[in-house]
């Protein structure tokens, strides 16, 4: 058994901090709790955590500001906790460098899945160097630029391939529309949601067999897309 994970939680609701601590015992996680943005930032600087959970609705400071100030000097994975209906805040947080988000009220299982994904990506220093992706019937050979679903090759256009491989390189993590558009099409296209939807639709029609139950690509309405990670 290695050393426990160090997680800093910045959340003003004591009850939420308490159940999070209870859900992952001291042998798994060492918790550091902060009620305010300032306190949390200090904790991150001193404790060098593996992960940060950040509530966007803090009383003393806008959670986004806290996130931006953390990102000035640290690449620690940050998962933001946010309320439903605040899609704009989620997008802002993700574009400001948050790794993922969960919407309150959230289930422990959901949070754990997000934490696992964020830690896995953080552990891989250079995700772009992976040679292949394989999960749940979808495999991508990054060298040969080939995509297979259940062993059958799927022909994608170059744009579709770049979209899918960007999602695969961040499997399990939500990527905002803006991120995808900027990465695949370039800065000038970052507001062209229409273009993105057209190509995502085309990818889905090629790799998903049932529109009602997509196996690979999850739409995060108002936020972006994520490739469904193998375990969930």
């Amino acid at each position: 058994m290695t050393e426990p994970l160090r997680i800093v939680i910045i959340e003003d609701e004591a009850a939420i901090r308490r159940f999070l601590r209870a859900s992952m015992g001291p042998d798994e996680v060492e918790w550091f709790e902060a009620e305010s943005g300032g306190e949390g930032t200090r904790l991150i600087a001193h404790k060098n955590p593996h992960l940060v959970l950040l509530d966007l609705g803090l009383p003393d400071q806008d959670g986004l500001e806290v996130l931006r100030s953390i990102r000035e000097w640290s690449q620690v994975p940050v998962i933001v906790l946010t309320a439903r209906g605040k899609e704009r805040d989620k997008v802002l947080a993700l574009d400001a460098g948050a790794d993922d988000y969960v919407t309150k009220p959230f289930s422990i299982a959901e949070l754990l899945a997000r934490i696992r994904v964020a830690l896995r990506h953080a552990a891989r220093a250079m995700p772009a160097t992976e040679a292949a992706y394989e999960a749940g019937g979808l495999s991508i050979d990054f060298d040969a630029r080939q995509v297979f679903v259940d062993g059958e090759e799927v022909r994608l256009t170059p744009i579709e391939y770049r979209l899918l491989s960007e999602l695969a390189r961040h499997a399990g993590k939500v990527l905002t529309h803006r991120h995808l558009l900027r990465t695949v099409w370039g800065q000038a296209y970052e507001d062209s949601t229409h273009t993105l939807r057209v190509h995502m639709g085309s990818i889905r029609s090629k790799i998903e067999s049932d529109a009602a139950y997509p196996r690979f690509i999850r739409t995060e309405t108002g936020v972006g897309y994520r490739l469904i990670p193998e375990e969930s």
Partner: protein
Amino acid sequence: MRASGDSIDGAPSYGLAVLVIVLATALNGLLYPYLALANLIMVYLLGVTYVASRCTPRAAILASFLSVAVFDFVFVHPSGTFAVSDVEYVFTFLVMLVVSLLISTLTMRFRQQSKARAEATMQAEIEQMRGDLLSAVSHDLRTPLASIEGSAGALLQQKELTEQSRQLAGTIQEESVRMAHLIRNLLDMTRVQGKIDLDLDWYALDELIANAILRTATMFDHPVRLRVNPDTPLARVDGVLLEQVFVNLLENASRHAGRSCQVEIALGGGDGRATITVSDNGPGLEAGSGARVFERFVGADTRGFGLGLAISRAALEAHGGSITASNRAEGGAVFTLVVPVGGEAKS
């Protein structure tokens, strides 16, 4: 001063008319030696104008009539009589009448408009306050609810729990999820009741539908069937709101047709609009309840406020679309949604 400046009506208005004419006559009595008759009429006209601007048309008519009568009786030679030669003053009377009616009608219309504006402003403020209050309340309810659900979830993860404790913790968790759902409905209702600020962007409707199917997956025994016409164009809509509409319709199906029902969703498009049908093989709608199901609280029972369909209709209408409910010939209910699509792609 009377509230909101209504026109003076009834006995006080006639009193004012008489008073004004008496004053005008007194003034004219003083001016009589110096002015021509035509100018004395002007003093009356001034009085009539004043009465018309403050009172209802009836008092203005009275003032016009009195003016001419008094003028004729007091000032026109021979004074103290109404002579046949005075018929020409009928013309004076008519002009005064028209002027006073015009002024009093215009004033009344102006007053009514400003009154309506004030009422509309007040109504909007009340709506705003109610919306603010409800969303503040729902937000304050959700925070403790997140703690309750999370705590129950953490409890369920404990290994040393007895079966009974596990069941109780499970109930706490399920019920808090249900309550979160009710709060969300209330919040959506307050949102769609006021002026809706739609957060418009391009969406593929089948993605929204698939998400709604995922979110309601635990409510059905059989997988939902989704048929998509591949030519369906993208729609510029509020994705979060529209996804919630699909969730509401699926919940409604599960509630009324039972969890063992078979739900089918079909998505097609053409002529600048997309049509979505959500059908089930349950008992269908009660006869004659077609449009009524979309009214608030109509579907209310122990499991909800019956807001889901009302929210759905308001959301569709805000998009310039529509939603209707009917029964299928082969049994079961079908909801038909029409959403405007297409338009100019900004890309």
